[in-house]
């Protein structure tokens, strides 16, 4: 999902673990007790969570770019207001998540630095371009739809601050998905050219969206520990299947065709079977070679440098006010 790039070996030195403390910790997790910031926790748990929450936060922030791309070109004032509110929400989600990650002992500046240097990842999905207005409909309907599927179980994550941030995010995400689907309905009920635009957007996004759930379970490096620690409640493949089952009927309601000849409802299992996902493409995009990776990183770095004066000015202003406040009692004497 937003943290699918976690599927790499952690290269940092392995921390010493204390088997007794680890088993006390596991007992608390097994009893569905929430773990809070200053509680004892295994170093590997802290590290995994920090990476996961930071990646999730980075995805929210980078995710503002493909949608921000259409704010000035939204087809009506209503759509523009909704898109602006949605992009603001994504910024807010990034802020909740950075705050949650900071409780584990990594500073916001460190996380930002890791994103800008390329050391930290964000979701592969945001390395695809939003070529037409229909892509904005797709991003809301499918990208946010997939995100909801992943984030609802995260509301029950064992780490308190992450779980609480997810509750807030999920409440807001529902508007995102519904506004996206409404854009799709408008296009599909519109002219043949609009309908075609909707179909082409679905064709472009369907497979990358399925990749959002991360590698298949058999190749997933961290599923076992993430499930044991109750960070994850469902595996990648389980969530992907839930998403396909929920989404295919919504696409058919729009009169659209999914770009997968193998997509077929299995009456015995009551699930939609889908075709083989191109995992080579997934690996390429995560490794940095997707259609927009370079552009996104360039935009993120430019934002950081171009806005440096705002951070400096805010600090200078706060310092000046502090100095004035300190000088005041002396003047009054």
């Amino acid at each position, binding site marked *: 999902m937003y943290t699918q790039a976690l599927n790499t070996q952690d290269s940092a030195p392995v921390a010493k673990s204390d088997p007794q403390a680890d088993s006390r910790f596991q007992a608390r997790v097994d009893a569905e007790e929430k773990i809070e910031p*200053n509680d004892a926790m295994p170093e590997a748990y802290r590290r995994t969570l920090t990476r996961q929450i930071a990646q999730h936060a980075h995805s929210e922030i980078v995710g503002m770019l493909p949608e921000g791309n259409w704010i000035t070109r939204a087809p009506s004032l209503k759509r523009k207001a909704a898109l602006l509110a949605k992009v603001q929400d994504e910024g807010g989600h990034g802020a909740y998540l950075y705050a949650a990650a900071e409780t584990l002992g990594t500073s916001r500046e460190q996380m930002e630095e890791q994103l800008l240097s390329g050391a930290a990842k964000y979701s592969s999905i945001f390395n695809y371009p939003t070529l037409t207005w229909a892509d904005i409909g797709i991003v809301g309907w499918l990208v946010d739809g997939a995100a909801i599927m992943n984030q609802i179980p995260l509301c029950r994550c064992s780490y308190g601050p992450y779980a609480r941030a997810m509750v807030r995010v999920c409440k807001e995400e529902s508007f995102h998905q519904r506004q996206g689907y409404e854009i799709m309905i408008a296009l599909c009920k519109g002219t043949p050219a609009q309908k075609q635009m909707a179909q082409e957007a679905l064709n472009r996004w369907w497979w990358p969206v399925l990749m959002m759930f991360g590698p298949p379970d058999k190749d997933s490096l961290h599923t076992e520990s993430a499930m044991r620690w109750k960070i994850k409640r469902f595996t990648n493949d389980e969530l992907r299947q839930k998403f396909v089952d929920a989404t295919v009927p919504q696409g058919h309601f729009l009169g659209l065709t999914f770009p997968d000849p193998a997509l077929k409802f299995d009456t015995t299992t009551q699930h939609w079977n889908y075709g083989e996902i191109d995992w080579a493409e997934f690996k390429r995009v995560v490794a940095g070679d997707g259609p927009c990776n370079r552009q996104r990183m360039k935009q993120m770095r430019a934002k950081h440098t171009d806005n440096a004066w705002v*951070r400096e000015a805010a600090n200078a202003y706060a310092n000046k006010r502090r100095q004035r406040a300190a000088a005041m009692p002396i003047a009054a004497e």
Partner: protein
Amino acid sequence: MSDQSWPLWEVFIRTRNGLAHRHVGSVHAVDATMALHAARDTYTRRGEGLSVWVVPSASITASDPADKDMMFEPTASKIYRHPTFYEIPDEVGHM
């Protein structure tokens, strides 16, 4: 880097009158005014609050979870502090 990191503030929101302010998260800001604005933008985009408090995180003194036994255990043995400790005959009715 010329960035001086911005202090962390904890954010508390009263969702409606009659309820206590409740911790909702944190923000970074150079001073209290900016912290209030950032808290408003981050945590109340959908009318979640009527009042916001921001407190410098460094000003909060917290108990250490590792000391929780020492801190809270003494109350566990004082069961006579609970109403159910006292026997009242059923005939007396609700008390």
